[in-house]
């Protein structure tokens, strides 16, 4: 993966290009870097719980995971509680009751995740919770990465520009909702985003101005049910039809349109003009 992380989309782009060149329809869901925006008026405890669940669940290996938290103004006061709750999560095998963070998929994934965390620290991010070199008793060979929070992250850092795909929450600070929207819309991916607020007006502004295909309002992972479709947008999809729901019907079918004329008296006039319906 290059420093901008774009090669993570190489497989999907290859399939889209090669399948397309062969005349096939292709729908390809690609990368994602999902941001949650927190306004000062959000309910602190339910917001922190939602962020921890969406950031660290499945060890962050979900394409709709919240991997970036954008704290607006006074919402930065949430960081200590975020760190405290994340630190309390149990890391261990998925079969053990009470475990919150399972192993990551491969030893290679662990190496990559830890390298990107280190890159963040070297670029100036702080690390109030560091899950590198994590050990789990009784499981010396597991692919463990503990919960990690990088704070003071900026959009030029390698850790921000890459999809870490691990139990790592990156915290960015901005002053206004407009700045938060601008930051999200400047990211090349548009899979999902969320806002936490008690203000209907702020939530409405966000849902209409943010350029991501799946938006949650006080919902951290807004994956639609199949009466809708999975509607990630911009750099998160190649192709013209979405997965499941009505999009899946459109993708997997082609139209056939039949025009039938059943006159009771036969039309016998010769016309050489382009047929029009009269």
């Amino acid at each position, binding site marked *: 993966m290059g420093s901008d992380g774009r090669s993570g989309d190489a497989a999907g782009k290859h399939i889209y290009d090669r399948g397309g060149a062969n005349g096939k329809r292709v729908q390809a869901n690609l990368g994602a870097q999902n941001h949650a925006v927190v306004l000062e008026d959000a309910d602190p405890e339910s917001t922190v719980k939602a962020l921890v669940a969406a950031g660290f669940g499945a060890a962050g290996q979900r394409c709709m995971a919240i991997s970036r938290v954008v704290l607006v103004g006074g919402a930065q006061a949430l960081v200590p509680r975020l760190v405290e709750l994340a630190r309390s999560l149990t890391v261990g095998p998925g079969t053990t009751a009470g475990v919150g963070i399972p192993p990551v998929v491969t030893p290679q994934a662990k190496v990559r995740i830890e390298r990107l965390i280190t890159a963040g620290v070297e670029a100036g991010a702080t690390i109030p919770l560091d899950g590198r070199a994590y050990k789990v008793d009784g499981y010396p060979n597991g692919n463990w990465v503990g919960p990690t929070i990088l704070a003071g992250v900026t959009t030029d850092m390698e850790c921000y520009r890459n999809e870490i795909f691990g139990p790592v929450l990156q915290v960015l600070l901005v002053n206004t909702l407009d700045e938060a929207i601008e930051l999200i819309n400047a990211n090349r991916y548009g899979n999902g985003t969320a806002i936490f607020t008690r203000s209907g007006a702020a939530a409405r502004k966000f849902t209409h101005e943010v350029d991501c295909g799946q938006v949650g309002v006080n919902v951290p992972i807004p994956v639609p049910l199949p009466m809708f479709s999975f509607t990630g947008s911009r750099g998160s999809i190649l192709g013209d039809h979405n997965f499941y729901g009505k999009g899946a019907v459109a993708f*997997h079918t082609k139209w056939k349109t039949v025009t039938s004329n059943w006159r009771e008296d036969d039309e016998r006039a010769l016309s050489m003009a382009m047929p029009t319906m009269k």
Partner: protein
Amino acid sequence: MPSIRPSVVAPMRRMVTAHPRSSSLVTKSLRSLAARAVTRALSTAPESSPAVPSVPLLINGEFVESRATAFVPVHDPATQRVLAHTPLATQDEMRAAVDSAKAAFPKWKNTSVSNRARLFFRYQQLLRENEDELAHLITMEHGKTLDDARGDLFRGLEVVEHACSITSLQMGETVAGVATATDVTSFREPLGVCAGIAPFNFPAMVPLWMFPMAIATGNTYVMKPSERVPLTTMRLAELLKEAGVPNGVMNIIHGQHDAVNFLCDAPEIKAISFVGGAPLKASDRHRLPLLAYECP
């Protein structure tokens, strides 16, 4: 049931019987494969203990062992214990899978939409009845917690439930009287053979995003699960077979680059669904047997 082309099945049978390891594995159901994988992961036996199974292919309704010479191990991420070996299917095997899907298409396309829906009514019930086993399989091969694995399955189950509505979803449009004694009706026709390429991170949900809606709309399918987490998909396919899917309508191949390129190139395949990425450094690749496709 669709007619089975002997030319497709016979070479596969020959291939399988010619293979030394086939006698035990091919005759055993995937249930036993799945159960043994779980037992192996939970046991404390050393890794040298008996035969780690090879993950079968599904071709024309039969679970067959690949004649592959290259394999990718399926590890339990908490222990590195090898649960199974995913074969990199041969070109002949992938060709047989596509031939089988092509042969099954005409009859499946003309199966009534109500009967196609009924397949998924039966399927959703079987998924519910086998939730615990499927969740354990997901946890074993992927690593996620059992609660999370149940959610993985449930989000896929919701797509299967939706596929039960295909009788309404696939309706076309009609305008009566566009001209004198002239009416226009449109139909939504299936495409033919479709294919899915799934990532590692949702062993049940993402495959269930793909093949149920494709098959419900009247297509036949070739699925390539993630080589990292193929066991869940095999069990999902076995349950689809139990629900009554005709031979050849659902097929499974395994592999990496060559399998992906095969699906991109096979002229019979009309549409490809892909979820994933490959978030690995170039420098990481030499440490892997081959590149693993992963959902970013």
